[in-house]
């Protein structure tokens, strides 16, 4: 398809009026700019989920589970691992790094703490190499 003839062919010019097309294109651009929602980048944590009834089904003789309780201690959100209480995820990460990662870990979220504080425990377990992380709602 030839839309333009050259100037040197007898001075003929083909004028294409692009104004309307550009208008439409601009309108579409504005439409998509207004209607688009910019989402923040998201990722995922993938713990196994269990209830306390299920997690209590094994006897102590079967295995010694490693449990992190996420609870309120004197009004302060705390990670409790055995006898140790920690108030930050980095402290928990340090403790977890001394434990055998192949045994897995249970994270139990209790009343009074926030979702963000509890999820930080799952993240700490993943960061320290635990493949099997199980979340259990604390009664």
């Amino acid at each position, binding site marked *: *398809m*030839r*839309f333009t*003839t050259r100037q040197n*062919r*007898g*001075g*003929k*010019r*083909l*004028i*294409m*009026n*692009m104004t*309307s*097309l550009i*208008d*439409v294109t601009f309108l*579409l651009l504005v439409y998509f700019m207004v209607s688009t929602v910019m*989402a*923040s*980048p*998201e*990722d*995922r*944590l*993938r*713990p*196994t*989920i*269990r*209830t306390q009834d*299920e997690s209590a089904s094994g006897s102590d003789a079967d295995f010694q589970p490693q449990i992190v309780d*996420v609870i309120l201690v004197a009004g302060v959100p705390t990670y409790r691992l055995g006898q140790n209480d920690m108030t930050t995820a980095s402290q928990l990460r340090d403790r977890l790094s001394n434990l055998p990662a192949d045994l897995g870990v249970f994270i139990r*979220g*209790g*009343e*009074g*703490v*926030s*979702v*963000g504080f*509890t*999820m*930080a425990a*799952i*993240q700490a377990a*993943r960061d320290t190499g635990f493949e099997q992380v199980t*979340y259990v*709602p*604390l009664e």
Partner: protein
Amino acid sequence: MRFSPHGKRDRQLLLELTSMVDIVFLLIIFFMVTSEFARDARAEVDLPLLKGEQVEQSEEAGLFINIDATGNIILSTSESPVTIAQLSDRIQRLVQQESSPKVTLRADRNASIIRFNAVIRALNESGVSSARIATEVPK
């Protein structure tokens, strides 16, 4: 296609685009009016600021369960919040359709863990043994 034959001097070919633009406009309006926009399954919540598991793989979207800061459970932004019982019904229907449904929990980091735990129990009672927990990757 030749728009300007040779040898005919001082002739201008104006390509009239107005009608085409009108039709394009009508088509755009038609599609905008008749299209059913995908319902937004992601409610606006402040996700826990965690890097997640950084797994580079595409995943099936599955069911999104949003929990906002006040504890409302939102399955779709175009619908009103649901109760735990309604959520259980929805999950059970999903389990009947797919043996291992994909579920993503999008919980506000400031939400109480109590509501989150209730959702976990509902999932577990319906036979869902793992869930993806959405996090916001810190900048």
